[in-house]
């Protein structure tokens, strides 16, 4: 069995491993393992000197297998595979033993145990290494078209960057218009730039870009394939409008008698009609007919829009359209939902008229919003003389969302400024911690202090209309502990603004599942590495940008959109992609043709070849999960790189110190797998 020449390299990782695991001892011990030719320990194996050590040993000592005991394979497996490759050893003959994340860092209080565990891990890796087979990575061509899902500011920027580089982009947006939440905002912090003024040119560019195909009012239904070659099915919902004829003149929505509250764009503060364009600068400019509120769809009468349309563009019978697109890469920029403040009834939203959410306030202060930018109470006329802004609503709260929504402190300062500027009202901020990190944000905080905004350090406990004293009568009272004084305070105000936090989209888990990417418990998409790979996901070819990955503000979303575009462009530029050859392979000579595997495969990658009476794996579709391998009753499917023998060997290796002595292997091969 052991004609292999194995090199074992135990990394100190500075103190990270050597501080807990006795690396010198482990290296000496490893040198006695069967088949091990050389075993060394070294300060940093991932350094160029460490890698050269491996390369030299391969060349001079003729190593046929390499085991590096260091960190997680997710960290440095590619590094050491590269070293092997350079020295002429097939990279799939390399095996990583994870003695940092899985040993030294988790057993810091028990050094002998950590050392023993490291030995077991290395022993397992050495045994497995012996059974590894040389493999060649697949090369797959990259389709040059990219799909961007989500037309908010992150998606818009990603799409424009890629399109400007000369490649096709399909931009899919669920709502009738692109623009996302940024289109709802009035001003942006800390510069107080007009949100629409900086967003609409970009929206216009998207709408008119020759390289961008815009699919609004559309949703992705299904994703198949792999990096370089995804097949995506998109449902384009019927607008009930013939966009070739429509000029966006507005006659239809001006005549539409069905008026409903707009919970999406106006955040519930304003109305729209059944046939509507969410906002004047919408891209595309065409309206949609909402069949849930349209009178015609309810009782078959009305058709006012049709009557008044000058170009006869109304199509009540228009059907949804399904579009199937082939793309090489996908950027997900699906954004966030606003926390529903009714989940915290102590703040009275939905019960007390003059409690508003931050998104309602954005619409109110927006010059094109329902009040034309006037700051007024729910009655629509009265200007408030005092306003309380409550931070952390649905953020930093184990009852709702544990994380900080990152943007609310700054948005609250922006609101405080706008309230002061427009009404001169007294403004009270109730906060736990003021979080104004990033360029020029603290300066804005200082500016607000100069403006005389009150800051009360204490999370508001409740908002009530129950007056205790005459000066509270008819007011909303915000009750909180001013923690810097240590006393409870009750501040009567006219208006309360709840800084509702950011939540993952309500369907983010489903979407993550559909695209095959990770999703945190909270529901934000998981990046490949929190620090070093923030816009890639664990699924090659699928990138994430903006608030679907976690709460962030506009500049951060823009940066991520552009970063994702750069990642896509680098793949397109490379032209093809290397795919790990972890695949299933059927030994057709021994296949009984029972077809059990055919139905088990989630990717329909196994075809039954009728004339031969055997099954065959299509390596282009196989993703290497190994489900068929484990299920084959004849044990004739081999999982490349995770072969039966390699795993059995690893089990033996791991159990080197507890294996029953004296008895040779009693395996249970007579037992058929269930």
């Amino acid at each position: 069995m052991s004609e292999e020449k194995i090199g074992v390299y135990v990394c100190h990782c500075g103190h990270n491993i050597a501080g807990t695991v006795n690396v010198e001892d482990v290296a000496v011990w490893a040198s006695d393992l069967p088949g091990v030719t050389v075993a060394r320990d070294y300060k940093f194996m991932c350094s160029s000197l460490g890698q050269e050590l491996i390369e030299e040993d391969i060349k001079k000592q003729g190593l046929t297998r390499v085991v590096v005991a260091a960190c997680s394979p997710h960290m440095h497996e590619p590094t050491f595979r590269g070293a092997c490759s350079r020295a002429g050893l097939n990279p799939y003959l390399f095996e990583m033993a994870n003695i940092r994340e899985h040993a030294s860092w988790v057993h810091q209080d028990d050094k002998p145990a950590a050392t023993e565990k490291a030995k077991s891990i290395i022993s397992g890796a050495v045994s497995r290494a012996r059974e590894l087979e040389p493999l060649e990575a697949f090369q797959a061509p990259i389709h040059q078209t990219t799909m961007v899902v989500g037309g908010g500011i992150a998606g818009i920027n990603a799409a424009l960057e890629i399109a400007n580089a000369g490649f096709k982009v399909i931009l899919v947006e669920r709502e009738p218009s692109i623009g996302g939440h940024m289109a709802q905002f009035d001003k942006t912090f800390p510069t107080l730039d007009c949100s629409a003024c900086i967003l609409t040119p970009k929206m216009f560019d998207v709408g008119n870009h020759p390289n961008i195909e815009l699919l609004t009012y559309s949703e992705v239904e299904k994703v198949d394939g792999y990096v370089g070659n995804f097949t995506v099915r998109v449902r384009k919902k019927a607008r009930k409008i013939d966009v070739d004829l429509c000029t966006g003149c507005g006659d239809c929505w001006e005549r539409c008698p069905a008026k409903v509250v707009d919970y999406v764009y106006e955040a519930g503060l304003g109305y729209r009609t059944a046939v509507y364009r969410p906002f004047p600068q919408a891209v595309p400019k065409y309206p949609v007919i909402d069949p849930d509120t349209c009178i015609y769809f309810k009782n078959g009468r009305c058709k006012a829009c049709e009557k008044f349309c000058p170009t006869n563009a109304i199509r009540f019978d228009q059907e949804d359209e399904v579009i199937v697109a082939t793309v090489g890469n996908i950027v997900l920029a699906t954004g966030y939902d606003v926390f529903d403040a009714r989940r915290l009834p102590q703040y009275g939203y939905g019960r007390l008229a003059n409690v508003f959410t931050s998104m309602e306030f954005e619409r109110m202060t927006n010059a094109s919003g329902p009040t034309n930018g006037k700051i007024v109470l729910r009655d629509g006329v009265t200007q408030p003389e005092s306003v309380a802004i409550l931070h952390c609503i649905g953020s930093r709260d184990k009852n709702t969302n544990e994380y900080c929504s990152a943007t609310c402190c700054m948005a609250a300062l922006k609101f405080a400024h706008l309230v002061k500027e427009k009404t001169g009202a007294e403004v009270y901020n109730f906060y736990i911690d003021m979080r104004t990190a990033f360029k020029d944000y603290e300066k804005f905080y200082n500016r607000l202090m100069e403006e005389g905004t009150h800051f009360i350090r204490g999370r508001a406990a409740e908002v009530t209309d129950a007056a205790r004293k005459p000066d509270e009568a008819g007011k909303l009272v915000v009750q909180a502990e001013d923690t810097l004084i240590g006393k409870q305070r009750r501040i009567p105000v006219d208006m309360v603004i709840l800084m509702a936090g950011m939540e993952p989209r309500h369907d983010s888990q489903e979407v993550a599942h559909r695209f095959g990417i990770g999703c945190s418990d909270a529901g934000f998409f998981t990046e490949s590495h929190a620090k070093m790979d923030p816009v890639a996901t664990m699924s090659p070819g699928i990138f994430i940008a903006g608030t679907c990955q976690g709460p962030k503000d506009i500049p951060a979303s823009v940066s991520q959109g552009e970063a994702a575009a750069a990642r896509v462009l680098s793949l397109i530029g490379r032209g093809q992609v290397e795919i790990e050859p972890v695949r299933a392979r059927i030994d057709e000579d021994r296949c009984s043709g029972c077809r059990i595997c055919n139905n088990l495969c989630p990717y329909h990658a196994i075809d039954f070849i009728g004339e031969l009476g055997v099954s065959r794996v299509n390596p282009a579709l196989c993703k290497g999960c190994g489900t068929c391998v484990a299920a084959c009753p004849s044990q004739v499917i081999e999982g490349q790189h995770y072969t039966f023998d390699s795993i059995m060997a690893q089990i033996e290796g791991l159990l080197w110190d507890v294996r029953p002595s004296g008895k040779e292997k009693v395996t249970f091969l007579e037992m058929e797998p269930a």
Partner: protein
Amino acid sequence: MPHTSRNGLYEQVMAETPGGEALTMCLQCGTCGGSCPSGADMDSSPRRLFALLMAHMDEDVLESNTPWYCVSCYFCTVRCPQDIPITDLMYTIKQKAIRAGKYHEDSHADFSESFIGYVERFGRSFEFGLATRYHLTHRPLSMVRKGGLGFNMIRKGRLNTTPEKIKNLPQLTAILDEAKRIARQEGS
């Protein structure tokens, strides 16, 4: 248990409160102090009391009147963003103060002790006895004023002047004695 270097009052209070270890997560946000209906009468808000506790200022904690003004409304507990069982912690701090004999003279330990005295003797509470005894010893003046109220209650049949007693009192006594023995043995 959380990583702390001592076994002081802070650690003991957490250990003796079911779920009490969440106290290490206190953000000092003041939701408890802001929610407290009797906060105005407390010398420290619950938040501040926890800060004192975490700073190992044990004397200040034990002598504070804060837990004694807790009305057990649980507003703080359900609103706490860190899931800290604040009301339960107040009970534990009261127990600690009684055991240490350190509680504030203005506190209501006597009332609680008189109450449980009746429960232990009869198995039932005895409001008439409690009210008269407590008020005679602590607030004779208010007793005079409240006499009318008590009379009214008796007239309406709402105040029993003789205590009710459960049948199997020895059983209850055995249970409570054993519980006390275990509590002592647990070294608290």
